């Protein structure tokens, strides 16, 4: 008997606050190998409490990540690109097995992930110069406007896309959000969920402070409401085209005036599209205007 057939299908755990906990709900759902009924792995079906814990972890990382220099954030995001290279084979193999993707396409997707990391690594110390300014106010004051991270961002996606499209979209969106100093909790879309383990490894080994990025897997329909209504979440990123999702996020999010930012997945920010890149970053910052007397 081939011993390899006896392997125990693993359970892919969540990634919260730099740790790998199981869902507190004790629930899971299977990811099958493509076109089969063979369980590739069990994925955690994150609950409302897991989400809450992830937000708590994100919030506790917020001050530190925000305080890091832009250069340091850039270095860490670049490090993610390097770590992705190290996890390439594993990611490609998951995409092949679960997503039924050709090795070539899977490699291209990983290339795009690396590109996105590199691109936003380079943006971390540029966007404030591009979007901030000194305001020529009339009077004896110096007034300048700078972008600051909005805070804790919850990220959700549509499940329609396959891994080849979804993976780079997820990473580019996330990288654009953390580059400015935000912390995130994201529910991975279906096609990316099985990749949680290598992704988490990348984040866990890139000198990223624990809690800056938190990854959940589960059912969007049962988490959506909680994402939208959590009062400590300042902003939601939704990449997708479902109007009912948008409406729900905006309606529930109004309670704490969440910034609900919606992008169509087709305006994906991969491939180093500069214009979209700045627009993405600027969607998750608050502009602060500081005045100080300067004399007559």
């Amino acid at each position, binding site marked *: 008997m081939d011993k390899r057939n006896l392997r125990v299908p693993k359970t892919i755990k969540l990634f919260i606050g730099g740790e790998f906990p199981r869902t507190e709900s004790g629930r899971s759902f299977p990811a099958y190998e493509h076109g089969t009924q063979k369980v590739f792995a069990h994925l955690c079906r994150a609950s409302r409490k897991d989400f809450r814990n992830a937000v708590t972890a994100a919030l506790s990382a917020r001050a530190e990540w925000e305080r890091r220099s832009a250069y340091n954030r850039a270095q860490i995001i670049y490090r993610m690109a390097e770590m992705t290279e190290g996890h390439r084979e594993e990611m490609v193999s998951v995409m092949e097995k679960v997503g039924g993707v050709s090795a070539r396409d899977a490699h291209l997707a990983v290339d795009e992930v690396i590109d996105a990391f590199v691109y936003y690594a380079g943006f971390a110390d540029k966007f404030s110069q591009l979007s901030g300014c000194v305001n020529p106010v009339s009077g*004896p*004051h110096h007034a300048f406007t700078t972008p600051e991270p909005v805070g804790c961002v919850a990220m959700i996606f549509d499940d329609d896309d396959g891994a080849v499209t979804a993976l780079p979209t997820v990473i580019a969106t996330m990288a654009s959000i953390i580059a400015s100093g935000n912390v995130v909790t994201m529910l991975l879309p279906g096609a990316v969920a099985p990749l949680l383990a290598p992704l988490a490894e990348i984040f866990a080994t890139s000198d990223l402070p624990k809690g800056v990025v938190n990854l959940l897997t589960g059912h969007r329909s049962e988490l959506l409401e909680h994402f939208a209504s959590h009062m400590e979440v300042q902003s939601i990123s939704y990449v997708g085209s479902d109007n009912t999702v948008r409406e729900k996020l905006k309606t529930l999010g109004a309670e704490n005036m969440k910034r609900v930012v919606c992008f169509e997945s087709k305006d994906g920010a991969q491939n180093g599209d500069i214009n979209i890149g700045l627009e993405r970053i600027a969607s998750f910052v608050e502009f602060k205007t500081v005045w100080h*007397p*300067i*004399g*007559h």
Partner: protein
Amino acid sequence: MRSVSMIDKEGRSLAVVVPAVDEVGAIERADFFTKRSIKKDSKLHALYLAISMCDLTTLEGADTPGRVKQLCEKARHPVPPDVFASVARTKNLPPIPSVAAVCIYPSMVSVAVKALEGSGINVASVATAFPSGQAPLSTKLNDTRFAVSEGATEIDMVINRGAFLSGGYQLVFDEIAAIKEACGEAHLKVILETGELGSLDRVRLASEIAMRAGADFIKTSTGKIQPAATLPVTLVMLQAISDFYLKTGKKIGMKPAGGIRTAKQAIQYLCMVNETLGTDWLTPDLFRFGASAMVNDILKQIFKEATGRYYYDRAFSLD
């Protein structure tokens, strides 16, 4: 916040602590008083008050006894009483008050004392090697003692700006304390010469040192240096007086000098005093104007209020 430590005459250590001054904010606040709109009775009230707070001054090398006597006449009657009575008849305005003091060099004190006899007008003398103050302390003390012995009731001294600017705060303090002693009963006004201090922070510190050392009044300027009194500088000094009063319960007087030429300016200053220190300070005992040219402009305004006509300058004697 600035803290400078001083040793007083008795050898006790004093901490002179002053808050920082934000120049833009001080100017903004001072500007506010130019927006006050003082009309009708309150304007007349202010104009009369301003005259009674005036120190008429002549501090020229060319001063003669004759000129000083003329000035003393003007001090008693800024406008001849009968002239005013005929102008003010219809409005039943009260007579124009005499000014608070005449301010002159020590050599002219005796002339002024004689000319002002019985008028109740104070004789103020500059002393301490006015206006530069560049003389040894002994000279400054002699200068002061002489003026007092001649009959001056008020001494306007200059601080040692050279010492102040080079950080010799103790020397500045000691000189003021010594002059204060030499003044005896005469009131001491300490001139900071704010136009030479370079910043409002320094104006605040110099004010505090002067008050701690025994000043009865603090005064902006000699009138020989530009800029002389300004609203922001005066405001900062008034705020120093306010804090000093809160801390010690002592009411120190204020005298802006130089650069105040119009009735309008005078009213702005009075509003500032009113809203910074309160009505307690709206008396010649605690507020003076070192502004001779202002008197005629005020008279012009009073005549206008009395007659409805705008007056020309030549209605009023130059001094």
